[in-house]
């Protein structure tokens, strides 16, 4: 009744209460019972042992309203009912168990009766057996003592026989080279012989044995000294010698020296890291292991313990391993340095990985050794070396592809689509370079792959990525591109320019592209691939971009200079070689002017393929029709009339000076902007300025001047469309005609209409 009254939602507390009650019943005292008791003393607790129904009822009646009371009552009734049914099932179950238990007990009673009878019988038999056995032992007692004695004698005799046969046996062992057997036999006999050495016969045996063992030791040492035998054989030898009480230190030395000679033999033949890993390192490990087993880890017994051998041996071992490893490493390094080919990086990485992995084994065997760290250093050095090689490979690749581009530029020049190829060449060149860079990055990335043991070393996580790959490879390469581009400007500048101008233009565009997008792309790619964490200061993208832009600017300036020079040379030759005094009346535009316009047009096309149009100052729709002639003072007057006194005829020189006063100074070889118009303006400026200077040191006849007029008009008709500010062209052409007029013996200009007709005609 009491246990089931707990409300279902407070189940844990209810269960604990039941539990505590059970405990109480069985008299188990625990801590915390005091609190329980205090609780259970409450007469209102319906589950407590001190429950008083009267008090409870009174309390309920006092506390609750009628409605609550009704509820309480119905709840109580429900609980009572459920408790009743529980009780019933319990009783029923227990009843069944009682019945089966009674059956079992009854059965057992019957069985025990049967058993009692049999036990009686058994005890009677045992008594009989005891009696018999006592009788037998009484009769056999004498013989037993005799047999014991006899067997004792027998064993003694066997031992003696062993002793007597010992020399012969040892000899035989010696012959068969069964050293281990001989040593164990001798060891067994040694104490006995020692003990009975005062008896002459034993003495003889002992001496014999000594001689033989001496021989044996000799042979062992001989074998030991011979070398040639495997590490296992050696360790066996050493073990036997140790058992023969040879001095341990000497053995250590000898053992190591033997191992050394054998391992060095390995090193001599060592060609590849693979072999080195497989043979040298494994046999080194074997030596270490066996050595440790022999000298260090052996449980010390007897006098060996007192000599403090482990420390001595350990020291020797370290020295030994270090010297050998140093030689091994130097070989490995030499081998790695021979690995110049760039293609098979995965092989190298695998080899280095294996190398590193094997050295880890040595770490495990020999915790304090410096060998693995040296090994890691080698790997690091190899990685660095590799990066350098990749950089130089990239550089040669870049040069090669530039040579290709140069050939491609030279070859199809004759073909029709020659000029249009330069755009494609640019994209293919930049794609080539980018792909090559990516593949190199991928190869280098192998160094940091997850399955490579050394990739989680701090060097490969930090410095390798940031200093090595990012700075050493990518940044250096970009810098190299800029640098080599700049070299094109400098080296070719003086000696007439061996670099084709188209290449200059192409490189300039390449550098510009690098500045705008490629550099940041490459660096982001690198950073992502290698998860570069910038511990150390690295070259920022902006600095690289600035460098690329500078290179692009330089190249473009140089391009303008070279192209301007080509055209100016043409103009200069044409002015200098002609006899301007005695020339005929102009009928045509000179061929060289047509050539200049043609060349300018082709340059325009060439630049247009790679650079945008650019802005030009607004000009009238029909600029080509502009009539210009500075030398004629009448026109000058019209132009300047508003601001100057129109009454006096103004001298042309003054007017041209005034003109100059108001126009900006023209910088001939000034830097150009990255667009077509600016480039063309630069080229035309250079050409026309040359024309001007050449005209000034010549002397013209009447028709010479007129020819210059025609030429300038022609140039003006065609060149204005290329430049950003047509006034510039006009100004320079005006200057040319004006200067020619000054140098003219008979300055009588041609009619503007005639000039136009000649120019229209072509």
């Amino acid at each position: 009744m009491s246990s089931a009254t707990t409300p279902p939602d407070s189940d844990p507390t209810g269960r604990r209460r039941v539990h505590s009650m059970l405990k109480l019943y069985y008299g188990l005292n625990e801590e915390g019972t005091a609190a329980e008791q205090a609780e259970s003393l409450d007469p209102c607790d319906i589950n407590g042992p001190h429950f008083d129904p009267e008090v409870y009822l009174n309390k309920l009646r006092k506390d609750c309203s009628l409605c609550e009371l009704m509820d309480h009552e119905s709840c109580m009734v429900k609980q009572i009912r459920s408790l009743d049914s529980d009780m019933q099932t319990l009783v029923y179950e227990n009843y069944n168990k009682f019945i089966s238990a009674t059956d079992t007990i009854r059965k057992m009673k019957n069985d025990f009766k049967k058993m009692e009878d049999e036990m009686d019988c058994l005890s009677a038999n045992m008594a009989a057996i005891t009696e018999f056995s006592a009788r037998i032992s009484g009769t056999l007692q004498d013989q037993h003592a005799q047999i014991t004695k006899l067997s004792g004698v027998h064993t003694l005799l066997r031992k003696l026989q062993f002793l007597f046969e010992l020399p012969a046996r040892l000899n035989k062992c010696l012959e068969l080279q069964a050293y281990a057997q001989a040593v164990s036999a001798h060891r067994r006999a040694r104490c006995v012989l020692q003990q009975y050495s005062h008896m002459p016969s034993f003495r003889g045996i002992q001496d014999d044995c000594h001689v033989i063992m001496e021989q044996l030791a000799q042979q062992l040492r001989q074998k030991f000294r011979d070398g040639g035998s495997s590490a296992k054989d050696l360790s066996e030898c050493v073990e036997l010698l140790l058992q023969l009480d040879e001095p341990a230190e000497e053995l250590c030395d000898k053992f190591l020296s033997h191992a050394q000679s054998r391992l060095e033999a390995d090193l001599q033949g060592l060609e590849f890291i693979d072999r080195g890993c497989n043979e040298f390192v494994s046999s080194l490990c074997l030596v270490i292991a066996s050595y440790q087993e022999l000298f260090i880890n052996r449980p010390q017994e007897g006098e060996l313990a007192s000599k403090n051998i482990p420390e001595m041996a350990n020291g020797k071992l370290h020295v030994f391993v270090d010297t050998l490893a140093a030689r091994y490493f130097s070989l490995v390094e030499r081998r790695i340095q021979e690995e110049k080919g760039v293609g098979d990086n995965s092989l190298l990485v695998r080899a280095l990985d294996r190398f590193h992995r094997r050295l880890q084994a040595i770490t495990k065997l020999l915790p304090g050794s410096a060998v693995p760290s040296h090994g890691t250093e080698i790997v690091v050095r190899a990685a660095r070396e590799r990066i350098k090689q990749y950089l130089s490979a990239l550089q040669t690749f870049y040069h090669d592809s530039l040579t290709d581009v140069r050939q491609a530029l030279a070859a199809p020049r004759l073909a029709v689509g020659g000029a249009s190829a330069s755009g494609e060449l640019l994209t293919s060149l930049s794609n080539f370079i980018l792909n090559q860079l990516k593949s190199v990055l991928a190869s280098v990335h192998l160094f940091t792959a997850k399955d490579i043991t050394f990739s989680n070393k701090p060097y490969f996580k930090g410095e390798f990525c940031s200093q090595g790959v990012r700075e050493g490879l990518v940044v250096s390469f970009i810098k190299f591109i800029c640098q080599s581009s700049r070299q094109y400007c400098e080296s070719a500048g003086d000696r007439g320019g061996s670099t084709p101008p188209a290449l200059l233009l192409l490189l300039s565009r390449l550098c510009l592209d690098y500045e705008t997008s490629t550099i940041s792309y490459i660096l982001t790619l690198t950073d992502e691939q290698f998860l570069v964490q910038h511990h150390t200061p690295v070259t920022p993208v902006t600095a690289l971009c600035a460098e690329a832009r500078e290179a692009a600017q330089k190249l473009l300036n140089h391009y303008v200079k070279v192209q301007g020079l080509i055209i100016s040379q043409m103009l200069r030759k044409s002015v200098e070689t002609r006899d301007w005094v005695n020339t005929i009346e102009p009928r045509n535009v000179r061929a060289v002017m047509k050539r200049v316009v043609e060349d300018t047009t082709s340059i325009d096309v060439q630049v247009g393929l790679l650079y945008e149009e650019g802005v030009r100052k607004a000009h009238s729709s029909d600029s080509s029709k502009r009539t210009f002639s500075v030398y004629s003072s009448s026109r000058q007057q019209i132009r300047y009339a508003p601001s100057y006194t129109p009454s006096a005829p103004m001298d042309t020189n003054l007017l041209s000076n005034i003109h100059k006063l108001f126009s900006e100074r023209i910088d001939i070889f000034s830097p150009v902007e990255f667009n077509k118009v600016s480039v063309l303006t630069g080229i035309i400026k250079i050409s026309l300025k040359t024309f001007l200077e050449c005209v000034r040191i010549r002397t013209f006849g009447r028709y010479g001047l007129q020819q210059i007029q025609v030429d300038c008009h022609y140039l003006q008709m065609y060149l204005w469309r290329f430049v950003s500010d047509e006034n510039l062209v006009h100004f320079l052409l005006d200057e040319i005609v004006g200067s020619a007029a000054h140098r003219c013996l008979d300055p009588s200009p041609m009619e503007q209409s005639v000039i136009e007709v000649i120019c229209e005609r072509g």
Partner: protein
Amino acid sequence: MERCFPFQTSVTVYKAYTRVESDANTIARALTAQTAETDAIRFLVGTQSLKFDNQITNEPKRLSSENRVLTCAAVWRMPPEWESGSHESPDDSSNNPQTLELLCHLDNTAHGSVACVLWEPLGDGKRVISLAENHVLLWDLQESSTKATISSTATLEGKGQLKFTAGKWSPHHNSTQLVTANDTAIRGWDLRSMSQIYCIENAHGQLVRDLDFNPNKQYYLASCGDDCKVKFWDVRHINEPVKCLEEHSHWVWSVRYNHSHDQLLLTGSSDSRVILSNMVSISSEPFGHLVDDDDLSDNEENQQEDKGKEPLQDSIIATYEEHEDSVYAVEWSAADPWLFASLSYDGRLVINRVPRALKYRILL
């Protein structure tokens, strides 16, 4: 020095702009300093015109003039009153030009047009060299310079039409060396044997326009050309220039060493600029002070001071942009080492001074 004081002050206060105003047409190309005159500051300007008689203003005692059209050269005598040392200022002289006395023509019709005429730098002025087409002509002037005869010639042989563009008579080696420029090459000549002694091929990327000898270092030579560069050569090692300046933005037409302080270098270019540079590293005065053998203690003090102040670097001292057309000639004054003139196509002669601060640094 007192006599030219008024002129000097006028320049010191401000840069003097002098227009060569002779008549309507003044296209000027030639400029030289009056080398024989050591007291007055006087420059000679040659004009280039066809319509009028070419004029030489501020006339000197002796002047070489050339006219490309007439392919002739002549020797002139300066008005005698100047010789006796008049007190005229240049402004006066331009107001009332004096005529030159023609002494003789260098008759070289057989050799083509004259590129330049050179006086013997030292000696009594009896010898003149003219460069015509591809010939070097050495003239001897007869008594009172009224007649010139060719004493020896040399001819430049080679492929194509070779033409001298510039030349300079070396003031060193007892005036036995001449250096000439044709196209991109610079050639040295021995006047005793009239044979070539060295040749710097491709000295400039394009035409070589002018040459000048370092007045204090006998093997040093400056050249300038159409590649906008000024190059310095040690003629003993002609494979590489000692130094190269690239400051102008168009052809450099003229280069001149200062006569007494050879770190000061003047260049004029058709970008209308005149640049005064301080080439300390290749000058005979490495750290900007004159070596004074007489006063050793003072010298030491100077050296200590030098350690205190930073040694002067090769640098541009100033860029003069007063000209509005191509500058074809620049020249140092013969009398005042701190004064120089430059002449542009439009006939404007600008006289400038070395900045005072630099002057004191060089002197002290």
